[in-house]
């Protein structure tokens, strides 16, 4: 299942129900729905705030196996940005240091499995998976 969303923060009000509905159809646990929603929210927000406008759309795809779901976010006509290349921080130490910024991608890296990145034809494709029972 895939759906295109306007590259705008207001689209989150459509993205959350979309994820909830699709993941519920695959019998995902409440914890998985929450974790996937948070990861998608962080990645989508990053695209809205820091990427070029590009086509003005972000396509979110959900596929699943009996045990896990696989989520892809795709934005096109943009410069590359690899979220897997962000330095891995000790979050507790980072927080104690008094620098609360930059948490979004750090959260994503810890919350999801198999975070992958591809840049093809000026499109950023970010894919991750998550166990449905997590």
């Amino acid at each position, binding site marked *: 299942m895939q759906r295109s969303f306007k590259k705008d*923060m207001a689209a*989150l009000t459509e993205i*959350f129900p979309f994820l909830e509905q699709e993941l519920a159809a695959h019998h995902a646990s*409440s*914890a998985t729905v*929450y*974790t996937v*929603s*948070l990861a998608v*929210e*962080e990645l989508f*927000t990053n695209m809205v705030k820091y990427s070029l406008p590009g086509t003005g759309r972000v396509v979110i795809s959900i596929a699943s196996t009996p045990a896990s779901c696989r989520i892809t976010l795709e934005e096109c006509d943009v410069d590359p940005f690899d979220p897997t290349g962000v330095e891995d921080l*000790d*979050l*507790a130490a980072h*927080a*104690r240091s*008094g620098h*609360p*910024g930059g*948490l*979004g991608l*750090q*959260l994503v890296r*810890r*919350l999801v499995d198999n975070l992958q990145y591809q840049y093809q034809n000026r499109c950023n494709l970010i894919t991750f998976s998550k166990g449905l029972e997590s």
Partner: protein
Amino acid sequence: MALKTTTLDGGIGLIEVSGSLVGGEETDKLRAAVAGFVDREYQKLVIDLSSVTFLNSTAIGVLVAAHTTYSRKGWQIKLCGINKNIKNIFVITKLTLVFDVAESRQDAIKSFK
């Protein structure tokens, strides 16, 4: 999101947050509420998240900043009422090592030294 601030006996400030905390105006209100208690020198603060359904990294950043401000002053700040899904995020990210988290508001209040 809705936010309510009150004061309790013993010089304790209380911030009750409800709904979804995803940045922008919502987190600005939380940041301002914390700053208000700091300005009035409330050295004990409870942030009750029992009615929060969703929070993102921006909101966590505000909580971290509040914790840093209070800790550097030698003051105390406690979170309480965190739901299972949010607690799971805190555990995975090891932010449970940073925050002082109580199950309930009463537990948080009782635990102040």
